[in-house]
């Protein structure tokens, strides 16, 4: 995004009082452009229904036109807010121009993407109806006008205090909108990539626009002052999700997201809080899954036992814990990158061991590459997880059942993360991450504290693995690789933590969701998925190294804060990483 600072005097004028007439005109033009974009979506953009989504109808928008419609409305409304229309000013607490630019760019990008996709998919510009041309032109105009607007960024304006019921209502509305947006993305046509790509473009630009307008900061202020309300709202949102899915493939996406998000959050204790780079975390998921499969009573299991589900979960967690301690105890005494190398090795050893414990290369435990299939479906208090259940007229399918079960584990992990993180032991983890020498000089037993973090992370992965084994009803060694196109793999988990934001709860949840959902929806990329993934990570590290959901600490670490005098910052940062004792 370009910050156009050619007219500092205009900026000052705009801040001082009445904006220059030219600014007012440009804002009005932008509003008109938004309105025109809205109108254009009611026209037909192409003549055939071959293009996904029905864009052939005059009179109402469809398919990708909906995205242009929504962004067009947003552009118009924000432009009116920029014109200081009464009742809309709350939309732009920290300035309107940059938000407008993003929205105009988003409208433009989505529309042009659609138009170009029509031309490419259907071979030729001839397939565009006049409506398509009109849309292309009218969405380009606001881009021009918003880039001529003076920048009016300002520090967050404190709005007057709303009554608390209103603030709670706002939180509820935000979660409802969020659920709708996520749902829309999940339910886009899986056979055609265009709707989902358009959705990604639209959501990306809209999200940046909301950040620039200062709305996101406002909302996070609200959510942090109503913590419990927010948590309940988030929980309700997550619980109602499977009831509104009409295809089992959508609820399956939901279960997988829940599982991977939970595992990523468990990894965040190890990586984000204690600063231990664990590159073989997926192996602990595997340990839990294999353990649960072996004691599940599956016909293919070499153990002839059938534990109840709760016992299988505990067994999975405990065996993972034991492996965590075995791996951690010798390596956590060392500093630096040894742990990364050892865990990387452990991840591969686990997979190879599972492959070879087949009765020919080694003792017969895991059936080698065939894995352990036919894990019987869960049944808790007569509630069979493989049957559909109807609650108040809404059907919950098999995946939905597992989704809700997994959600329970997610809540447990969130609880563990927030409670452990905000305590004596959590502070010790962060202190170790920040500067191990200073931490030990403060009386922290580095080895012990690190081992607790590592073992806790392993246990949580084991618990999640036990649930996952039952959901998949089969475990095979090839699921637990270091890197691969299909999650879970260790790279995926570490990337989810880093992408989302280390040390936060929301970060890994969001990171895992994005990293799972986007490749799933863009399967046409096939072999290029990993390439795209790599490029995305590089871009992220360049532009937002603290992750999507920044920890307050990291936000301050990576960006200048405006606070004066940050002495020795580089020295402190240097010494925080892998120091030798000699530097003490």
């Amino acid at each position: 995004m370009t910050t156009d600072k050619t007219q500092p005097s205009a900026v000052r004028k705009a801040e001082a009082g009445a904006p220059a007439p030219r600014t007012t005109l440009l804002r009005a033009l932008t509003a008109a452009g938004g309105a025109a974009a809205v109108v254009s979506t009611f026209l037909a953009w192409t003549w055939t229904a071959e293009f996904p989504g029905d864009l052939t109808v005059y009179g109402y928008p469809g398919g990708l036109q909906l995205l242009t419609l929504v962004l067009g409305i947003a552009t118009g409304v924000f432009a009116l807010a920029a014109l200081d229309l009464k009742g809309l000013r709350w939309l732009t607490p920290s300035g309107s121009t940059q938000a407008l630019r993003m929205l105009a760019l988003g409208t433009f990008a989505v529309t042009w993407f659609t138009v170009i996709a029509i031309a490419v998919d259907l071979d030729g510009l001839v397939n565009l109806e006049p409506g398509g041309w009109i849309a292309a032109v009218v969405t380009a105009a606001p881009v021009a006008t918003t880039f001529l607007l003076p920048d009016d960024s300002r520090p967050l304006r404190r709005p007057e205090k709303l009554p608390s019921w209103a603030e709670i209502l706002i939180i509820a509305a935000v979660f409802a909108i969020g659920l709708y947006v996520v749902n829309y993305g999940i339910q886009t046509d899986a056979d055609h990539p265009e709707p989902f790509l358009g959705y990604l473009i639209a959501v990306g630009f809209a999200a940046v626009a909301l950040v620039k307008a200062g709305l996101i900061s406002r909302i996070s202020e609200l959510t942090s002052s109503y913590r419990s309300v927010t948590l309940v709202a988030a929980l309700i949102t997550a619980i109602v999700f499977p009831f509104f899915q009409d295809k089992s493939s959508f609820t399956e996406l939901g279960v997988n997201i829940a599982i991977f998000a939970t595992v990523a959050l468990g990894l965040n204790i190890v990586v984000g809080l204690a600063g231990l780079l664990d590159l073989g975390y997926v192996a602990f998921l595997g340990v839990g899954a294999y353990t649960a499969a072996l004691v599940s009573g599956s016909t293919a299991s070499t153990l002839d036992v059938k534990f109840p589900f709760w016992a299988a979960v505990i067994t999975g967690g405990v065996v993972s814990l034991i492996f965590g301690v075995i791996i951690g105890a010798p390596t956590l005494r060392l500093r630096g990158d040894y742990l990364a190398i050892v865990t990387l090795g452990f991840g591969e050893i686990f997979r190879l061991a599972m492959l070879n414990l087949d009765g020919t290369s080694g003792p017969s435990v895991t059936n080698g590459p065939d894995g352990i299939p036919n894990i019987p479906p869960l049944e808790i208090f007569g509630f069979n997880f493989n049957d559909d259940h109807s609650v108040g007229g809404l059907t919950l399918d098999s995946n939905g059942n597992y989704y809700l079960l997994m959600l329970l584990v997610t809540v447990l992990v969130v609880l563990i993360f927030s409670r452990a993180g905000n305590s004596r032991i959590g502070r010790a983890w962060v202190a170790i991450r920040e500067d191990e020498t200073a931490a030990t000089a403060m009386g922290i037993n580095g080895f012990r504290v690190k081992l607790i973090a590592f073992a806790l992370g392993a246990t949580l992965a084991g618990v999640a693995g036990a649930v996952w084994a039952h959901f998949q009803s089969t475990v095979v060694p090839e699921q637990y690789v270091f890197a691969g196109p299909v999650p879970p793999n260790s790279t995926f988990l570490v990337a989810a933590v880093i992408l989302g934001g280390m040390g936060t709860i929301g970060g890994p949840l969001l990171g895992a969701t994005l990293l799972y959902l986007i490749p799933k929806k863009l399967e046409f990329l096939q072999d290029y998925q990993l390439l795209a993934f790599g490029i995305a990570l590089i871009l992220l590290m360049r532009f937002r190294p603290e992750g999507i959901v920044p920890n307050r600490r990291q936000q301050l670490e990576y960006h200048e804060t405006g606070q004066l005098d940050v002495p020795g910052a580089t020295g402190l940062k240097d010494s925080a990483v892998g120091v030798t004792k000699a530097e003490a």
Partner: protein
Amino acid sequence: MTTTTTSPVLTATGVTMRFGGLTAVQAVDLDVHPGEIVGLIGPNGAGKTTFFNCLTGLYVPTEGSVAYRGTVLPPKPHLVTQAGIARTFQNIRLFANMTVLENVLVGRHTRTKEGLWSALLRGPGFKRAEAASKARAMELLEFTGLADKADHLSRNLPYGEQRKLEIARALASDPGLLLLDEPTAGMNPQETRATEELVFAIRDLGTAVLVIEHDMRFIFNLCDRVAVLVQGQKLVEGTSEVVQSDERVIAAYLGTPFEGAPGAEEAAEVEAAEAGATTGATGGATQDEAQRGTTARTEDGQ
């Protein structure tokens, strides 16, 4: 702080630290008594910080032992802190991305014992301990004058306040002995004065202080006793006056004083001083002999 004033809080006996062929600290003995402020001075590279690291368990001394209130300390930093010796660092080592309050709370680590389970279950005991820790931490921030910045990230504090915060964090472990490694480095005279007051206040709380410093005015105002470390060996130890007037100390820092006309007399003086410094470095019987003449309490280098 129940022990009698006669028994020292810190007894370092024959502490020697060798890095391969280099002897950084050689057979240094040092006692610190309760309620005392002891200074440790010496030219750059004399081994002061290395000696500190030996005391706090960051280094395992090649020879010699360190005892706190009569108990020999294991060379593990966290056990040393637990026993009651806290320290600050020469190059500030705060937890940069934690808040000021959190930094001090980390310092409370050894004086609290809530583990993972109590953190997860959040029983009344946990909440009480957490509240008590916070109260004590705020008390210390009040004491060092940082209370109004409790929620700032420590990396955003100005330099002088980072130094203060390091001291507050060290005090959080309720130490019987506080080791300060160049607490006024890079400070202006006002800040140095304030630090001086702070160290006196700490002493008045009943904590003995051992301080490394290059600012001589600061050291001589502050310290009851000063030990001089030159090339890894303790050259002299005594009150400010004794140390200040000891010509070997002056020689170690400055060479010999230049008074009167340069000439044969001057050259002889230089030679004498150099001879003194050399013997000081090599140790042994000659040094012993040289020191017997002074009123200072000196240790030989055996």
